[in-house]
């Protein structure tokens, strides 16, 4: 009896890393990856100079307040910065103005998302879309799932319309980099 008890303890101890790894795996979800990417895109995009009047002007990421990405995004960007700029996550309500937003994430399948995307047209805002939508509804960057992994597409024409310049390194790791659609 006693021996069986010890065996159980050893097995349990051996299982701890596995369980931890499992827990971690559980934490790394598609949403959290997307939240991370959203945040890191700021490193490889060039905004017009007037967008950041000062060196410490924060980078503002706007997301609909109802989106599932919000908790992960807030967690990841809590202490982060992009090129020394603090990160601010702006939670958007339907009809909010997009003033001061630099990166806008929307689910293109939703109506509110389409509205926000429309509002961002012509503004120097990196539009990042998600969802299985036709190309013409995609933002400058568009998340896709490939082989179970989160990837993204880069739409240079869209970026150009938004007066943004995507970094070469970003384009190289994007799934495709068409000149426009």
């Amino acid at each position, binding site marked *: 009896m006693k021996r069986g008890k010890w065996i159980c303890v050893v097995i349990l101890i051996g299982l701890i890393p596995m369980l931890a790894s499992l827990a971690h795996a559980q934490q790394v979800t598609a949403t959290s*990856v997307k939240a991370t*990417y959203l945040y*890191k895109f700021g*490193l*490889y995009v060039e905004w017009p100079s007037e967008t950041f009047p000062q060196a410490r002007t924060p980078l503002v990421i706007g997301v609909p307040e109802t989106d599932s990405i919000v908790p992960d995004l807030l967690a990841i960007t809590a202490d982060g*910065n*992009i*090129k020394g700029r603090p990160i601010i996550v702006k939670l958007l309500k339907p009809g909010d103005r997009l003033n001061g937003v630099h990166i806008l994430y929307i689910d293109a399948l939703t109506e509110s998302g389409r509205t926000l995307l429309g509002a961002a047209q012509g503004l120097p805002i990196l539009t990042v879309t998600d969802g299985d939508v036709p190309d013409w509804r995609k933002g400058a960057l568009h998340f896709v799932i490939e082989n179970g*992994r*989160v*990837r*993204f597409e880069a739409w240079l024409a869209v970026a150009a319309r938004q007066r943004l310049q995507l*970094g070469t*390194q*970003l384009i*190289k*790791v994007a799934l495709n980099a068409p000149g426009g659609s």
Partner: protein
Amino acid sequence: MPLRRIRSIRYKLFAGVGLISVVGLLVASTLLVTYEMRSYRSDWESDLQTQARLLGHTNAPALLFHDEKYATENLATLRLKPLILAAAIYDAQGQLFAHYGDAVLPERPGLEVIQVIGQQMELFKPIVENNERLGTIYLVGNYEWLGRLKNYLLIVLLICSFALLVSAVLVWGLQKTITQPVLGLAEVARRVMEQRNFDLRAEKTTADEVGYLVDAFNDMLVEVGQSTQALEQSNRDLALALTSRQQLQQRFQRVVESAPSAMVMVNREGLIEMVNVQAERIFGYARAELLGKKMEILLPQRYRAEHPGLRTSFFADPTPRSMGAGRDLFARRKDGSEFPVEIGLNPIEMEEGLMVLSAIVDISERVRAANRLAEHAKELERSNKDLDTFAYVASHDLKSPLRGINQLASWITEDMQDNLPPSVDKHLQLMRSRITRMERLLDDLLSYSRVGRVENKIGKVNVADTVRDLFALATPPPGFKLVLGDDLPVLTTPVAPFEQVVRNLLANAVKHHDKHEGTIEFSAQYDGEGARYLFSVRDDGPGIPPEFHQRVFNMFQTLKPRDEMEGSGMGLAFVKKVVENYGGVVNIESDGVRGALFRFSWPAQWDDHSTKGAVK
């Protein structure tokens, strides 16, 4: 130092420069290679770092957005850089994210480090983006430092060899410039030493220190040559002097040896240094018995004490002189017998110092002869005295009866008066004439015997006047004349003998003349050499045949019968004796046909020694 063992400056220079070049090249090469290898490594490190940075930067998005494919493709581009053997990217969790190459990769990334393992250089470098460590890049390079080192060493070796070669060529050329004059100088010096020829000169080819050295060397050669020449000349002179001195000494010894007198050479201490065979003979010693002995052994015992003092005084004033002037000197033979000697002393400067050379003549014979002569002289004097007495007595005693006979004859003539038959008268006259002749003969004989033994008065004689007076006394016939020569002197001389000579000659000339007229010439000629006058009496009478030229000077010699020619026959004998008594000669020149010339010489000046027996 090996350099010291090299004998030639050429090779010394060559070896020295070579050594310096090699050391220099070695040091330079070591530094260069060290620097190059460090630089190589530094370049490699820098290269690898840069490469890692570049890859990190390029692959940061791949890490960030989990694009392993991109990372792998990106690393695959390293195939363009064959020196990169392997590369790997690890993610932030240390998991291998992408890799390139076949090398075995570390399972986990190491700390940031760059290190060399064997022939490879490996690097771990973190990939940081936006101050966030995204992962680690690992690079492995083919760091072929050994091959590089070998190549480099080969190049350095080639360069060094080339440099040495060039340096050798340059040094060879340079050493010619530097050492050629020095070697030339050394060569000349060697030849000078070998040939002893100081006329050789080094050629000056440069104006630098070597040129100055060449000048100095040549000047020195001139001086050495002159000194050597002077020295050799001096040596020759010395040898010559030595030889001539030796020859002189040998000649001196031969002269001494062959001298007719005994020769003994004595040094300051009185020791006999040299004797000749004559000395051996007269002293009866063998040479070996004399050499080195005190010379006093040659003196009679009575002289030995005082002799050293005499010798000292001679050395104090070493002049040639006769020994013991005015004294009778005697020497002593080995057997102890003594003999009279005459000794001449001569100082001789020999190599060993001042010596005295004594020439010793045994005068025993001379002394004996002198003694004999003295005895003869005494005998002669006594004989002369006897003769004188006899002559005087004879003439006196003979003249008395003659005068008696003459008296008787004159008495007979007076007594008989006219009764005397003519034949008797003639006989009586003849008798009286012969008595007169006999008396004159006795007078002349007496005079003759007194020649040289009677002291004659010295007076001034005016020859011209005297001749004139004597010519008158000769009562020449009226047809005779006297011719006197020019410059007849005035003599200071014994008057009577001179007048007797002149009177006899004049009387002779007048008496034997065969004519009623005649000329008699009297002249004089000075013979400076003999300090004499040569007087001549020339007549133009019948002359004297040559065969009688000697006889006429004998006593009682007349060329005509006594009765025919009045005379004693003593005249010319008397002349000859007087002239010879005064050191002169008388002679005749006549062909026996006509004329005769009598010549006699007479002292021009009178002194006590002008004649030997004139004062006796």
